[in-house]
């Protein structure tokens, strides 16, 4: 395809990547788009392979497809495929389907296994400018590299396996520009939670969101992955950040990343991806983060969020009846009372992990808080690295000793307590502070209560036994 556009209409990065993958526009107005990367996980792919067998269709491009086992795997130390007996069926199906269709499979026996959205960037499979689909709503994570990550259902997994293309309604364009600089001790998780709080969990419906602004440029690639991970929680189809020198440095040397002349060509193309000046977005927002405090959710959607120095809101303070009802129901489910300060709410479980916050930088941020402290008595605290590569890198720094000595569990890679489809559950009625992405009712187990926060905030709560301002612990 032609890279040299004579058009003078400025385009966003989203529009450029979409155009570079556009096969044709269909009669019904949808775009038939080439899927340059397809990533599979075990809990949303088995019925897709079954239907392919029933219809006699082959996997068209196994070389553009990889698979892993992450959702239902045990995270017990020294686990294997059978450690969680309840997961064995889907784990075996993933392995068998991958092998039968010549798809590269990073199973629990592979040193590169991990959460699908962690290993994609980490192995150089997700690259700037690609369109990557996965049967998982957090696929937008790879937007942190400047890619279009689109979460799809199982029928669409089957569709991509059979055709390497999808007929998609082209998302509308949306931009969120963050205003900084960020205060010390405030990071990517706080910024995205704050944006969701300001704009609401359905603000991005039907949109491709570009995140922009000085704080984003200052973020590491890992922090951008965290930011883009929660695009689905603002209701968006996908979210992304333009690639820059930090991105190129991150990609270089990854196992499946391009090398040599091909890398040079790739980087030349990637440098042209950022949004042109004067590009118009269908929706354009500014979110001020200059005085942001560490964020923590108090309710059962991610828009129920406040600074750690705030109190549980009074539902009557909301402008609409709908929000008043939602807030009252959420506060009731969470076992809280309006006006209670967030700081000091006692917690039972602290979970550091998930595709949102399980990368090396996240574990380092948590470790900086934990160093020299012990987990409060009665608190179960877990660190679940996002991949076995992250785990090894953390262990090379001795972080496993630091966490274990403090009273944390140090587990194997997987989705773990984010999704409660495996063995890692929050007990009924218990209160968990988590670095994951969803605080929905029953999400971490029946009647679980979840407060979402950053790795530093989660580590601080584990030590204090209650929600606490992590910035105070940084000064000690």
């Amino acid at each position, binding site marked *: *395809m032609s890279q040299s556009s004579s058009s003078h209409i400025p385009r966003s990065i989203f529009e450029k990547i979409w155009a*570079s993958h556009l*096969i*044709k526009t269909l009669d*019904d*107005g*949808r775009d*038939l788009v*080439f899927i*340059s990367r397809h990533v599979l996980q075990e809990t*949303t792919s088995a*019925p897709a392979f*079954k239907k392919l067998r029933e219809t006699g*269709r082959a996997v068209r491009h*196994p*070389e553009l497809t990889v698979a892993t086992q992450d959702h239902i795997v045990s995270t017990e130390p020294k686990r294997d495929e059978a450690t969680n007996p*309840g997961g064995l*069926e889907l784990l075996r199906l993933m392995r068998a389907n991958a092998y039968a269709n010549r798809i*590269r499979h990073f199973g629990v026996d592979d040193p590169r296994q991990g959460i699908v959205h962690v290993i994609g960037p980490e*192995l150089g*499979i997700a*690259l700037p*400018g*690609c369109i990557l689909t996965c*049967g*998982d*709503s957090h696929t937008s994570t790879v937007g942190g590299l400047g890619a279009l990550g689109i*979460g*799809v*259902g199982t*029928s669409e997994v089957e*569709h991509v396996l*059979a*055709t*390497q293309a999808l*007929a998609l309604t082209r998302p509308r364009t949306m931009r969120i520009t963050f205003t900084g600089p960020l205060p010390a001790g405030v990071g990517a998780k706080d910024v995205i939670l704050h944006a969701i709080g300001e704009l609401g*969990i*359905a603000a991005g*419906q*039907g949109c491709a969101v570009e995140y922009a602004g000085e704080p984003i440029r200052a973020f590491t690639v890992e922090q951008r992955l965290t930011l883009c991970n929660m695009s*689905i929680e603002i*209701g968006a*189809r996908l979210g992304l950040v333009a690639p820059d020198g930090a991105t190129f440095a991150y990609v270089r040397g990854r196992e*499946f990343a391009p090398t040599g002349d*091909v890398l040079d*060509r*790739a980087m030349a*193309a990637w440098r042209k991806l950022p949004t042109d000046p004067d590009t118009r977005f269908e929706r354009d927002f500014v979110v001020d983060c200059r005085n942001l405090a560490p964020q923590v959710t108090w309710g059962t*959607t991610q828009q129920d969020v406040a600074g750690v120095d705030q109190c549980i809101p009074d539902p009557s303070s909301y402008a609409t009846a709908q929000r008043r009802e*939602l807030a009252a129901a959420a506060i009731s489910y969470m076992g809280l009372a309006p006006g209670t300060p967030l700081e000091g709410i006692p917690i039972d479980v602290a979970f550091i992990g998930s595709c949102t916050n399980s990368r090396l930088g996240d574990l380092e941020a948590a470790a900086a808080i934990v160093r020299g402290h012990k987990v409060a008595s009665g608190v179960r605290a877990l660190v679940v690295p996002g991949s076995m590569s992250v785990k090894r890198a953390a262990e090379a720094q001795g972080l496993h000793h630091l966490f274990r000595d403090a009273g944390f569990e140090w587990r194997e890679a997987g989705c773990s307590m984010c*999704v*409660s*489809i495996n063995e890692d559950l929050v007990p*009924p009625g218990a209160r968990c502070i988590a670095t994951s992405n*969803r605080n*929905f*009712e*029953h*999400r971490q187990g*029946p009647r679980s209560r979840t407060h979402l926060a950053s790795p530093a905030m989660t580590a601080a709560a584990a030590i204090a036994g209650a929600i606490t301002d992590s910035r105070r612990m940084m000064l000690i």
Partner: protein
Amino acid sequence: MSAPFQDFSGMAARFKGTNINTDAIIPAAWLRTAHADFGRGLFARWRYDDAGNEIPGFVLNQEPFRRARILVADENFGCGSSREAAVWALMQFGIRCVLAPSFADILYENAFRNGLLVGRIGPETLARLDAAITVHAQNPVFAISLSETTITDPDGTAHHFAVPRSRAEALLRGDDEIAITLGHLADIEDFHKRMQQSMPWLHRDPRTGWPSA
């Protein structure tokens, strides 16, 4: 591929709640095997107590709504997880149409792929349907016409819902989307060959580490 959508008459239930997420529609516990009874798992955490007994106050446990074929829901229905089992659970329970002011993107696509009709309604239509279900709570039989994109209440009043014309026609035909895309296979493969030249970095084979043919 799904069977062609047939117009039908059936019980409508008012399912209240903004931002109903797919974790609520089908909890993760039902996703642990390849052959779960999704219809039984529909809204399980709200439908059953810890002992597995039905909670009488939950709308779909009540007559006649336990036989509902139509759900009238609120904004942002189906947000959260991409799990297509949310649509399978609705359909296996017997739901063939959900009407709401807005739907989350992934659930919306998953619905069409399975022949579940999802129609958008404005706040006034929502209020009228809500009132009609309340008034006719003993026998809330509504008629869905997809070709007309209407739902007719027991009093005979037709209310419009919005479905993109092309999507409605695809449902009425029972399109096999994969077969349709495979009809464009020559274009897809041409595109792939050109892309291998223009973006060779996207074509390193993770199975061998070498550029793929």
